């Protein structure tokens, strides 16, 4: 878990879903211990990229290495946790039953269920059936399961979608707490104001990474004052010509945020 090796390393990734070529030679390295925000319009390939990292996406070519192992390797199933876009819980079971089931699948003590339920603030809803929960509570149930055990990489697909600002702030508080413990997080979102809460940003469009940067550099590079406009600006430049997507002269073929490159040197 030294900072020198990337948490996720993708090279030449090619993915086809149906007739659509989603990725055609995607390269990417993610720095461990940081929150990487995966941003981009819907349909840009965020979920597919996430599925590749978790190892549940059929790929046509390239390599996806997660924590030093090929994505989806059995050994990674305890080290990488994932919560999909739809809250993947049993809606006919209670919060407690859902979390307890997964606790047992990971072979963890039942106190672990209490811990994660409390962590996502659902202690009072523990015996409530999932289909009686609000959207936010349902998402948090799904999130609680992704916190079980000691994951080294937590991958969350749009965990804050449709949530009110207070709840979103709370969840980002949880994510920050995890990152402070050295856990790497990949969090996708299409709400650009969440960009500021990330350490690194991956801006995607049409199956390509338009920029791999940090919130601060994003504003500087785009010359805009808020992330929303900055993102639009980069998209505009990307549409105009992918070669000019970044002002940075040293954009390496392997997309790595600049601070990480500095760290490595």
């Amino acid at each position, binding site marked *: 878990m030294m900072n020198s090796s990337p948490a996720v390393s993708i090279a030449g990734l090619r993915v*086809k*879903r*149906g007739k659509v070529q989603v990725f055609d030679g995607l390269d990417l390295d993610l720095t461990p211990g940081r929150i990487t925000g995966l941003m981009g319009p819907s349909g840009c390939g965020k979920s597919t990229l996430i599925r590749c990292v*978790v*190892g*549940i*996406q*059929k*790929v046509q070519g390239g390599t996806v290495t997660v924590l030093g192992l090929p994505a*989806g390797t*059995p050994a990674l*199933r*305890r080290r*990488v*946790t*994932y*919560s*999909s876009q*739809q*809250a*993947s*819980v*049993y*809606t*006919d*079971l209670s919060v407690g*039953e859902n979390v307890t*089931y*997964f606790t*047992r*699948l*990971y*072979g963890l003590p039942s106190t672990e269920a209490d811990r994660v339920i409390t962590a996502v603030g659902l202690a009072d809803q523990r015996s409530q*059936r999932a289909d009686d929960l609000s959207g936010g509570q349902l998402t948090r149930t799904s999130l609680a*399961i992704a916190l079980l055990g000691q994951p080294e990489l937590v991958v969350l697909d749009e965990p804050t979608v449709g949530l009110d600002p207070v709840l979103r702030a709370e969840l980002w508080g949880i994510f920050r707490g995890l990152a402070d413990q050295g856990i790497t997080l990949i969090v996708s979102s299409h709400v650009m104001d969440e960009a500021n809460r990330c350490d690194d940003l991956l801006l995607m469009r049409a199956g390509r990474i338009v920029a791999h940067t940090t919130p601060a550099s994003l504003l500087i590079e785009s010359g805009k004052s808020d992330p929303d406009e900055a993102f639009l600006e980069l998209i505009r430049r990307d549409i105009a010509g992918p070669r000019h997507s970044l002002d940075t002269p040293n954009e390496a073929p392997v997309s790595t945020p600049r601070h990480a490159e500095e760290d490595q040197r």
Partner: protein
Amino acid sequence: MRLLATAGRVLSQLRRDPRTVAMMALLPMLLVGLFAWVMPAKQFAQIGPMLIALFPFIVMFIVTSIATLRERTSGTLERLLTTPLRKAELLFGYEIAFGLVAVLQAILVVTFAVYVCGLDIAGSLWVVGAMAVVNALMGTALGLLASAFARTEFQAVQFMPVFVFPQMALGGVFMPRSQMPDVLSAISNWLPLSYSIEAVQRASINVTGWDLNRPLLILVGVTLLALLLGSLTLPRRTP
């Protein structure tokens, strides 16, 4: 541990759905009662044992195909496959949970058929009941497999008539297989329900030994094959 956790989870889900539990436990019994009422005693004596095996099969087939289709479409299957859970543990978890329900179902249906409807069974009631359980387990395994070929619950329920009625017609419920045209008799040799019917018929007239064990082994084989094929329909990576 993961196996039992999965079986327990499936049972908890069932407990939350009293209507389905009632259907699983009571429907075979009520249908047997209806047949007993409709038919002359002599005819019911022939067909009764088959019903004891067939109804649990049909009910389990439907319930399992829908339960596992839900698992496939709700995203929980995808999530399960990112955990240390093995596919065999998932499949046998379902088998254990529905197997327990099948035991309850068999006790009810055999007791009801014999003591209420007056069905005369020369063989051991336990063996006949065990046939009902074996058939229910096969229904579960085939339902699991069938769910892979449905995209919606609407499609899943359609498998039942497609899959079950031709097998009932060819399996010897209405006409002994030996008296069928050669072509149909040959086809029926390849249908699992033919052996369900054969096994329960033989058990009910106290046939033992290889004549009973052969159809029984075929049923167990079909169940295991369906589970094996079922596990192939649970790829960790999907397109």
